[in-house]
């Protein structure tokens, strides 16, 4: 995805503020628990679950959970974090931005394509958020000169008016590992002005040697190890008797 340097810089500042007030940590923990709970009850064979039921349930759980827990969390409240409901969607207000949650499609695992996996036309709240950012700031192409001279202002100042941020998250079905990104939505075809990753679950055993799938394991098999032999001998008395 082509990124806009002003958007990237703005998003990094937003990220730092959300980190400071504990919102990123809060969402990392919440997403991980919601995702694990939902993949544990995901039953495609018995209950005819599919990616849609899993995604909807997880998204709804996260939304409800964020609304309930942010309201109860004194630490977050002291840092000015609060939640509202917009068109039945939870919006977290923190660090000078409005944060909405977006789940990446299951098919993309933890590698969503930010320029093609997301469209805002299906949800009024998201569409409105993307429109506000779009109206606040549009990156100028260096190859296309405007027909008329206009006062665009300082783009680094203009991008700061992009106050709608999406917290995109995804999870893997097999491993249960999750990842999260902050993104500045826009109405451009590429959907995001800028994206930055804010967490990536590591495997519990990450950093330790692991075999690659399909690669034979090293070392001898149990069948190739020397087998101990129990030793049985006649008692000396019996040996003597036998020689008589």
């Amino acid at each position: 995805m082509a990124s806009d340097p002003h958007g990237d810089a703005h998003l990094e500042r937003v990220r730092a503020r959300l980190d400071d007030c504990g919102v990123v940590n809060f969402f990392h923990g919440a997403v991980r628990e919601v995702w694990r709970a939902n993949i544990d009850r995901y039953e495609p064979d018995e209950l005819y679950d599919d990616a849609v039921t899993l995604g909807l349930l997880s998204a709804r759980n996260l939304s409800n959970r964020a609304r309930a827990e942010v309201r109860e969390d004194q630490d977050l409240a002291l840092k000015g974090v609060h939640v509202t409901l917009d068109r039945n969607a939870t919006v977290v207000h923190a660090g000078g931005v409005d944060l909405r949650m977006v789940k990446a499609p299951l098919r993309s695992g933890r590698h969503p394509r930010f320029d093609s996996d997301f469209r805002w036309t299906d949800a009024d709240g998201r569409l409105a958020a993307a429109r506000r950012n779009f109206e606040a700031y549009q990156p100028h192409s260096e190859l296309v000169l405007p027909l008329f001279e206009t006062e665009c202002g300082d783009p680094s100042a203009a991008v700061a008016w992009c106050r709608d941020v999406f917290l995109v998250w995804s999870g893997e079905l097999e491993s249960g590992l999750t990842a999260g990104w902050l993104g500045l939505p826009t109405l451009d075809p590429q959907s995001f002005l800028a994206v930055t990753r804010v967490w990536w679950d590591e495997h519990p055993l990450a950093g330790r040697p692991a075999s690659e799938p399909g690669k034979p394991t090293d070392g001898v098999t149990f069948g190739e190890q020397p087998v101990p032999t129990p030793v049985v001998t006649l008692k000396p008395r019996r040996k003597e008797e036998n020689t008589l």
Partner: protein
Amino acid sequence: MSLDSPARARARQRRSTGASIDFDGKRLSLARRLRRVQRTTLAGRTSVTAAAITQFERGVRPTNAVAAELALALGVPVEFFQQGLPIPQVPTGGAHFRSLRATPAISRDQALAFAEVALAVVDVLEQYVDLPELADLIDPVDEDATEQAVALVAGRARSNLAVGPGPVAHVVRLLEAHGAIVLRLPAEVDPRVDAFSTDAGSRPLVLLSPLKNDRARSRFDAAHELGHLVMHQDVTPGSKTVERQAHQFAAEFLAPTDELEPDLPRKVDWDQLVRVKQKWGLSLAALTFRAHALGLWSEHSYRRANQHLRAAGYPEQGPLGPPESPTLIGAAVDLLAGSGTSVEQLARASRLTVEQITDVVQAGSDTKPRLRLSIEPG
């Protein structure tokens, strides 16, 4: 003049044959339990009551006629009841049964009786041969021992049994080489008994189920029983905690976590799991459990993997061959036969029957179990 009831008449007739002078009640109990016969059933096949049988088993001597009746009903020569080699007693509380609660008492008694005969056979064999020196394995753990503590005990047991890094070649042979007696339970014993072990005799005794026709499972069962022998000397058998500790011991003994972990796939990959199975001699079910316990797989993956295994059934993919078999008792008897001491001589020396000794030898030999055919008269 009073009229005799039939029972009184039978009793007078029994007394007229005289009390049996040489009678060991423990041997009556042994023969009865070995045949899986309850006292009431035995009473129904003889002229004495169940209460009388209880008295005989406790040391009251029956008449010669009753002793003969009991012997006939239990299929042993009457001489079997005479004092002979002391038979070690294995109380229920002295044996770790894999399926204690699921096993009927009569089946458990039969299995324990077989264990007692086996220990007696070992005692008589040791009058003639030197069996492998007994390793000092005892390393008790608390009831609330952590998984890590059990893993450390398993590591020490590997070291005490001179097992180097990597997979264990042959668990049964390893136990035998360090002085334990391993036998397969006879086919007549209720399969619900599964496996069990006891240290009530002069040597630790492990009895394995003959029905698990799978090498990986036989290895795990033997390692599980080794866990009891190492950790649970004075522990009341049967609790879930004790069984769980033995399972943890077996898993860690057969494949120490730090060695197994790099081999396990990070997601469900049956081809890789079969390779790991063939390296470590562990079942796919055990490897699946381990991958989940180590946090390599999510609950979801673990459940799916188990569903797959259940649907695939037994035998598992990537079979490892026949179950591990013991050899020690068979080898000892072969050695004696080569030096001119027959099973019949062992039977005479111990006052066990030839059939009883042969059953134990079969159970402790690397051969197929003896097939018994009974032909009903037409």
